Structures are given as structure tokens and as C-alpha cells.
């Protein structure tokens, strides 16, 4: 009964840590997807020769923070404008000519999307011959930066609290286990058992509890991640493609199990020491 209880608590603790890790994995993934959508647009000069245009394109494509480059011809731009603002159709057809300049849309590498390097690089490109203007939503970049900072901060903060709480809980559960068997420990010492002999079963028990608890929690997390999207079902709607639930990485899973074992080991050893005195 007591061991069952300990196992449950340990499993719950790891479940919470694991769910949290998985959530942060998903958030990170989401952030990456969002920052992939962060496009920078270079408006080219109207009277640029095709050679110069290729030159500029190459120049942009070869810059370190650039991941992907797409050329948008004035015709494409017009088509897009018509789709986006159907009420303004008349305006554009009245013009007779196409007022849109050619542009280059650039997708930045996720990691550098909001780094000062990138910003500086982009600003320098503004002065590059053939580029008339560089547009990218500074506000948007700022928001992305804040969001990722916020996510990380929430992560460290809550994660820290949870991990501390779990450590505390688990080591206390093991301490309680040892405490409940202090008479047995005493008797073993009185019949001449060495300290190693006494420690061994507790250490094994503690580590087994830790490992079993963490494995169980991994299984539960896996179950939740498999079942949860099904439960959400159609209600996800437009977000279906963005919210792609992913399991913990192998490294994370392993360190969870390893953490469980270590906690069991340390918990047992530290709780035992005070009963090995008399």
C-alpha cells in the first residue's frame, strides 16, 4: 500500500514534468513555424535590368541569415493585391499600368529571425544598388522576440517550481518509506548486518520506484499525446496544421528515467543515513 502510494506520487510528479516538457516542445515548434512565416520583402527598383535583378537575388540568397528566397514579379503582386482587396479592383484597372514594383520575399532562418545580426544585415541591404526599399514588420519581429522570451521565462519559472516540487515530493516519499521500516533497519543492525547489506534493498527499491514511476509517466504522457488530438477532433479547425502534438525526444525521455533513478538513489541514501547510527 505504501509502495503503491509512493509509485503513484512519483509517477504523477514525472507526469507533470513530462507534460510540461512536451508542452514546451510544442511551443518551441510553434514558435519556429511562426518565425518561418516571418518574411522580409525587398522592393526592387522599377527599371532594373534582368541581370542586375539576378545579381541582387543572388546577393540576398547567399546572405547567412537567409533561408529561402522567392521572387515576386509585378504581375504576381497585382494578382495578389486584387485577391486581397477586391473592392479596390476598379482602382487598379482604372490605372491601366501596373503600379507594383518587383519584390523579393525572404524567409529567414528560424534561429536568427530576431537576432540583432539579422536586423543589422537587413538594414545594410537597404543601401544596396537595385533595392529601393526593405520592408519588414519591426513590430512583428519585436512581438516574436517577446513571445519567445516569455515562453522561455515561463518555462524556466514553472519548470523550476515543478522540478523542485517533484524532487521534494519523491525524496520525501522515500524518506517516509525508510521511516516506516526503521524498526527493521534497527533489527538488522542488531543481528550484525553491515551498512551495505542494509542499504542495498532500500537503494534498489528507491531506484526501482524512481525508474518505474518515470516509465509509467512516460507511458501516460504518450497516451495523452495520442489521445488528446483525437479528443479535440474537428474542433481544431484551422489550427490543425499548426498544433502538431509531439512526444518527448529520446534524450528527454532518457533523462527523465535517469532522473527518476538518481532521485531514488539519493533519496534512499540520504534518508537511510540517520538510521545507521546506533
Amino acid at each position, binding site marked *: 500500500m505504501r509502495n503503491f502510494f509512493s509509485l503513484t506520487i512519483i509517477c504523477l510528479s514525472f507526469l507533470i514534468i513530462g507534460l510540461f516538457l512536451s508542452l514546451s516542445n510544442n511551443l518551441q515548434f510553434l514558435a519556429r513555424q511562426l518565425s518561418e512565416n516571418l518574411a522580409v520583402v525587398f522592393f526592387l527598383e522599377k527599371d532594373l535590368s534582368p541581370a542586375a535583378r539576378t545579381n541582387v537575388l543572388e546577393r540576398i540568397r547567399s546572405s547567412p541569415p537567409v533561408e529561402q528566397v522567392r521572387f515576386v514579379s509585378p504581375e504576381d503582386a497585382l494578382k495578389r493585391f486584387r485577391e486581397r482587396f477586391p473592392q479596390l479592383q476598379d482602382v487598379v484597372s482604372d490605372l491601366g499600368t501596373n503600379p507594383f514594383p518587383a519584390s523579393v520575399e525572404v524567409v529567414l532562418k528560424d534561429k536568427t529571425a530576431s537576432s540583432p545580426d539579422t536586423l543589422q544585415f537587413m538594414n545594410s541591404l537597404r543601401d544596396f544598388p537595385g533595392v529601393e526599399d526593405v520592408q519588414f514588420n519591426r513590430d512583428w519581429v519585436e512581438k516574436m522576440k517577446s513571445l519567445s522570451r516569455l515562453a522561455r521565462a515561463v518555462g524556466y519559472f514553472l519548470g523550476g517550481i515543478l522540478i523542485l516540487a517533484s524532487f521534494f515530493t519523491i525524496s520525501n516519499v522515500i524518506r517516509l518509506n525508510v521511516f516506516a521500516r526503521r*524498526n527493521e533497519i534497527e533489527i538488522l*543492525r542488531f*543481528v*550484525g*548486518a553491515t*551498512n551495505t547489506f542494509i542499504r542495498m534493498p532500500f537503494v534498489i527499491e528507491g531506484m526501482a520506484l524512481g525508474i518505474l514511476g518515470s516509465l509509467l509517466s512516460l507511458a501516460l504522457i504518450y497516451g495523452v499525446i495520442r489521445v488528446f488530438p483525437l479528443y479535440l477532433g474537428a474542433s481544431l479547425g484551422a489550427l490543425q496544421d499548426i498544433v502538431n502534438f509531439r512526444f518527448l525526444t529520446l534524450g528527454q525521455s532518457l533523462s527523465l528515467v535517469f532522473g527518476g533513478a538518481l532521485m531514488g538513489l539519493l533519496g534512499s541514501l540520504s534518508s537511510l543515513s540517520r538510521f545507521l547510527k546506533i
Partner: protein
Amino acid sequence: MIELYHVWKQYQKPSWALSDITLQVKKAEFCFVTGPSGSGKTTLLKTLFRELYPTHGQIIIAGKNIQRIPSSKIYELRRQMGIVFQDFRLIFHKRVFENVGLPLEVVGLPRKELRRKVFNALRMVNLHHKIWEFPSGLSYGEQQRVAIARAVVNNPSIILADEPTGNLDTELAFEIIALFREINRQGATVIICTHDKEIIRRFADRAVFLHSGKLIGKETF
């Protein structure tokens, strides 16, 4: 073998549970400790296997000052001893067999020999038919005999028994003391605390009498 020099023990401030006990028990001696309830018999015994440290004084066992033994090495002392506790101290979630086998298990005796010795010890206390029971399924007298079997199972050179016959009928009590006597004849030093005047009259070579922690009589019969 066992020597106490000016041993004092105080649990709480004003009163002394043991005061100035000086006592030698020779090798292969058979010694009773008696005295009224609360006179310090259990306390005296507890200092001998170092459940308690005396407040003052020296205890020398087999030439060693036992207070000086580090607690990680104390098992060497205790492996020479068989101890019967007044409250038995059995492990209730282990069977009688495992309880009695404990002192052999901790020295890593082979399974087969362990089983033989445990069975012998239980037969000596007339309890071999309860070998696979749990202590909670035994009467108190039976539990006490399990504790006695555990104390003698590894042929200890020192036996310390605290009221080992308190829950036994007279015949059985005599048998148990006779058993200790037999082990004593084979060379073990035996110290038994008891209230039972009848037992002391029949078996004692020597009895020491405690009163409020003081040694007030050393009689040799």
C-alpha cells in the same frame, strides 16, 4: 570477557537509570541480573550491545572498549552476540523462518546450511511446526520463542537475554533456561535478566541484584 567500570546512565535529568555499575562477567559464565521493575536491567543490557551509550564509564567486551568502535564497524561486535529483546523485535512482514535466519543471512551463510540451522533452533524452542507462519499469527509466548531461536541460531559467544521467559509457562521457561545453560556449557557467556525467583533458585551460578540503578548484591551460588 565483559567488564563494566563505573558505568552511569541518565535518560532524563534528575534520576539515574544506572549508577556506578562495576561488574565483571568472565568467559563462559552464566549470570543472572535481577531486580524490581524499573531498576535498570534492560538499560544495563542495552549498554552492552550499544543500543545505548553510557553517560559515564567504560565497557570492555573481549578486550575492546565498545564505545570506541565506529558505528560502521559495530556489526563485528554484534555478530558475536545473540540478543533476546524484552519486546522481541521481530520483523512482522517476514515469516518465522526468515526472522530466525536473519543473523545467518547477514553473514551470507549458504541457503542449505541456513535452513538446517534455523530448523534446529526452532526445534530447540519447540516451534518448528510454526516455521512458515508470520509473527502476527503467533501467540506472545510463541513470538518470544522465535526471538530466542534467533538469538541462539548462530552459536554466539555472548548471549544477552532480557526477560526471555516472561510470556512462557513454567515448564517451557525451564526448558529455555536449560537451553541457554547448554549453550553456556559449550563456551558461551550468558547474561539473563529475569524476575523469576524460581529460575534463579534452580539455575543460577551467580546473580547480581539491581535496585534503582545500583548494584546492591553480587551473589555467587
